[in-house]
């Protein structure tokens, strides 16, 4: 059996600088042993521990979709020791990833339902995985309408720009990209995510909202969804806590009786109400 503490060896295949400020990059990895890719079968919403020998590990949401074969992607903001070391890496470098870890977006529950996806800042990563998964030709018919509201502070901070462009041309996704403040070339929406959600006003009927973003965005977005009539069961988010083991052993990431690494990171608001408000 795979030892869950030992990473799969991967090679940095491609590095994409996502934003003007250059502190967010997407790393595309290939498994050194091709058979590991199947062992790393993941679901949108799960995360991995990026493992740099000599530096340590960081839990990072998986940004690619399992429908994208041959590689796996993570979008990482430069923050502390591990993420800085990662940002200094070059293509071709060897490192490791552990996982896949955690639960996932509730795919079975989402089946047959309309999905409303709301993301802010760089917390958009596992939502991007979900969108690419749902839009894939094998899966698209399993889900109803897909509505996306995605916001960043300014156009230079939007992630996955080429993909946003491609999605905007499709008729089977209602994409709403917004920036707090545009620039000379920006032709899209301006305004904060909560306001845009209010404007787009997705129907609560047979719908589930997946919401991820900075705490302020979440704080002002939730009331909008309550007002639209979404129940707490149908508002789903993903938590972050400091982590080490990622497998519910090291005792670090509990919220009440649940370990965010193992029982989460995805919880509905109804589930969070059952837990202690300590995160």
């Amino acid at each position, binding site marked *: *059996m795979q*030892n*869950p*503490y*030992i*990473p799969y*060896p991967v*090679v940095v295949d491609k590095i994409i600088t996502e934003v003007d400020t250059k502190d967010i990059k997407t790393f595309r990895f290939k498994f050194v042993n091709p058979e590991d890719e199947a062992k790393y079968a993941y679901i949108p919403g799960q995360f991995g521990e990026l493992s*740099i*020998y*000599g*530096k*340590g*590990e960081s839990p990072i949401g998986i940004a690619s979709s399992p429908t994208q074969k041959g590689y796996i992607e993570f979008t990482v903001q430069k*923050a*502390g020791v591990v*993420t800085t070391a990662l940002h200094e*890496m070059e293509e*071709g*470098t*060897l*490192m*490791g990833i552990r996982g896949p870890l955690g639960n996932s977006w509730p795919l079975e529950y989402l089946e047959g339902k309309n999905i409303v996806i709301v993301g802010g800042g760089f917390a958009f990563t596992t939502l991007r995985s979900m969108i690419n998964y749902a839009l894939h030709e094998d899966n698209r018919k399993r889900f109803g309408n897909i509505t996306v509201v995605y916001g960043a502070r300014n156009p230079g901070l939007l992630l996955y720009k080429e993909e946003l462009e491609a999605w905007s041309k499709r008729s089977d996704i209602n994409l709403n990209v917004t920036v707090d403040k545009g620039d000379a070339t920006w032709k899209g929406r301006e305004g904060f995510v909560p306001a845009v959600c209010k404007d787009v006003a997705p129907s609560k009927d047979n719908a589930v909202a997946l919401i991820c973003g900075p705490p302020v965005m979440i704080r002002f977005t939730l009331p909008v969804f309550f007002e639209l009539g979404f129940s707490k069961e149908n508002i789903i988010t993903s938590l*972050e*806590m*400091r982590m*080490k*083991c990622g*497998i*519910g*052993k*090291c*005792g*670090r*990431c*509990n*919220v*009440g*009786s649940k370990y965010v690494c*193992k029982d989460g990171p995805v919880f509905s608001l109804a589930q969070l109400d059952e837990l*202690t*408000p*300590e*995160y």
Partner: protein
Amino acid sequence: MEKRLIKKDALAGIAKKMAGDVLVWAPVKQEDNVLFKPLRADDEPFFAYLNSKNAPKNVFFPHTETLMKYTRTEKGMVFSEEVNDAPQSVLFGVRPCDAHSFVLLDKLFDQEKYKDGYYIAKRRNTTVITLACVKPPYTSCFCTSVDGEPVSSDGADILLTDIGGDYLVEFVTEKGEKLAKYFGDTQADAAADAKKNEIAAKAKEAIASKIPAHEVKPILDKNFDNPFWDTIHRKCLACGTCTYLCPTCHCFDISDEVTEVEGVRIRSWDSCMFPLFTKETSGHNPRTSQKERWRQRAMHKFKYYIDMFNAIACVGCGRCVMYCPVNIDIRKIVTDISKL
């Protein structure tokens, strides 16, 4: 299963004989403390001890442990070796509360979804010999309040009970029976059994410290925000002594140590009493003061572990009570919670 009798003064000799064949962890005196140590030829095991200062959990879950090794190559560091060796061992003479702690740790490290191979390998290859407390060693012992007893085979492969001039040797599991050859050939009779039961009942009776550990779970379920939590942590120094000595505390850190060419990834004990334990890179800390940290400790032992594994994560050894430098007493905390 089989029961035998051995002369009381034969015990140390048996441990030393075993130590010639396998790795034996036994209580030995070290300055003012008694600690479980791998018994070397010139060590004298000390079975007349009260309890070891440190919990013997380090036999399965060492204070620091190598998870993997790696080496530097031109293309970066590569994983080179998985370290996971566990020699055949005997843990000789642990107290029943500490043996009970292994059953609790198993629930976490050996659960269905993620198996902790490092812990499991050592646990599987180790035979636990429990030395019953015919007289509770400390006034702070409260095992009977938390599903334990001073004479108990819970978590043991072999149980030794002092019944006067002899030890009654009870082989509890097949793993224990495999060591039968070390314990002579005197079969125990019904009288020895009766004597043991009598001693066990008396020992249980002698536990004076009692806490309402089973009553507090429903209270904790509802009182996360009770002002009570503002009252218990004030003198806490955040030293972590309570968690390091505790037989059931299992929190750990993972870190890398590296030289020019090679390195190791290790895990080492950590503590929820430390401010940095939950601090995130952004600076956000879900547990901002010692209040939240103490609430976590109490909740983890008397609520969360029950929610997760249907067991209280305290075995009543009293170490945290005896060694907290500012006399914070988990027994009082639990008793006070029961009155909320």
